[in-house]
């Protein structure tokens, strides 16, 4: 698992402490997080902004989005920032 995914996995555990035994893998869809809804999406959005410096639209954080999707977005955003700096 890439460093981005490892950090993202820790973030999921931190943001949703009651996730329990749900296996956290790159293929995990956000809809599998217990009580996932539009409000949980905002909490994840806040975490991503603070820990990865990225702004994602709430639309992107839907039930079918996987952790791999989010990790890819993070890495692409970081690469873009580097090219522009």
């Amino acid at each position: 698992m890439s460093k981005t995914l490892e950090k993202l996995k820790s973030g999921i555990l931190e943001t949703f402490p009651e996730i329990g035994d749900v296996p956290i893998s790159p293929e995990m869809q956000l809809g599998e997080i217990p009580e996932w809804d539009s409000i949980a999406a905002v909490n994840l959005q806040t975490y991503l902004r603070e820990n990865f410096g990225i702004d994602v639209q709430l639309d992107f954080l839907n039930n079918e989005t996987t952790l791999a999707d989010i990790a890819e977005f993070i890495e692409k955003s970081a690469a873009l920032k580097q090219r522009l700096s």
Partner: protein
Amino acid sequence: MIRSVISSTGCYLPDNIITNADLTQFSEEARDLVRVKTGILSRRVAPENKCTSDLAVEAARHCLEKISFSPENVEAVILSTSSPDRMQPATATRVQYLLGTGNAFAFDINSVCSGSTFGIALADSLIRSGSVTNVLLIAAEMYSKILNQKDYSTYPYFGDGAGAILFKSGSDGAGVLHSRLKTDGSKHDTIRVPGGGSMLPFEKMTSPKLAYFKMKGEEVFSFATDKAPEIIKQTALQAGIDLHDIRCFICHQANINILNSIADTLAISREHFFVNLHKYGNTASSSVLIALDEAIAEGVIVKGDLIMTVAFGGGLSWGANLIRL
């Protein structure tokens, strides 16, 4: 017949106003949604060095001083809170001390957001039993200290505040006419602070965030919109009152969409539902007493009016009190 008459009311809201725009820990997109989801525009947050009993004392002082009622004459202090100063002793004890109500016995009750209606019923029972001739009922909450500031499912919706009612025994027809209280303990997990008690002691918590308040928002919405109209109808029916004779419904101020749904379900004009949640957010069990004090202060309700206080909250619990002012 002895009844518990509302002799005075009071409230206290901290000075510090936090608007939705101030919640910069969330995206602008999310901040805008707070108003849409709940109708809340701002909330009050108490200073760092204050605790729940401090708010309670201010509200109670406001209540007693309004009618120059001497604290020494208060016979009982009941404090409704779900955000106590400490696990123990009862937060009401510090209130009793600071307020100068040394002749009163004092204790806490906790029925989360429905605490006001439970407190009114309890105060009324004490007076009707003849044990006391007056009860100072206070509801005080400081949720800012038990919420995760980065949790969008809770933080934006709650505010700090306190309200108070001085009940005195009377027999001229005014007072608490009827109360109805309900609990569904099968839903005890819907609204909760998971850690810090005997169920999950601090040292067993897998994350410090388990000591923060949590709720299942959609379940709470469904519960409130279902049970509140039901208990309003049942309370009026048991008291032999037509709903349209009630001048004003003072409901727990959690969400404007809940209040509108209750009004529409009952086919009662929304104008009969007092609203101040846009200013203060959800102040848990103190919301009804704060709203009651404001409704009286603004002249929305006056002596002689029939009102109904209604609340719903953790437990799950819900209650209503029919009162003649």
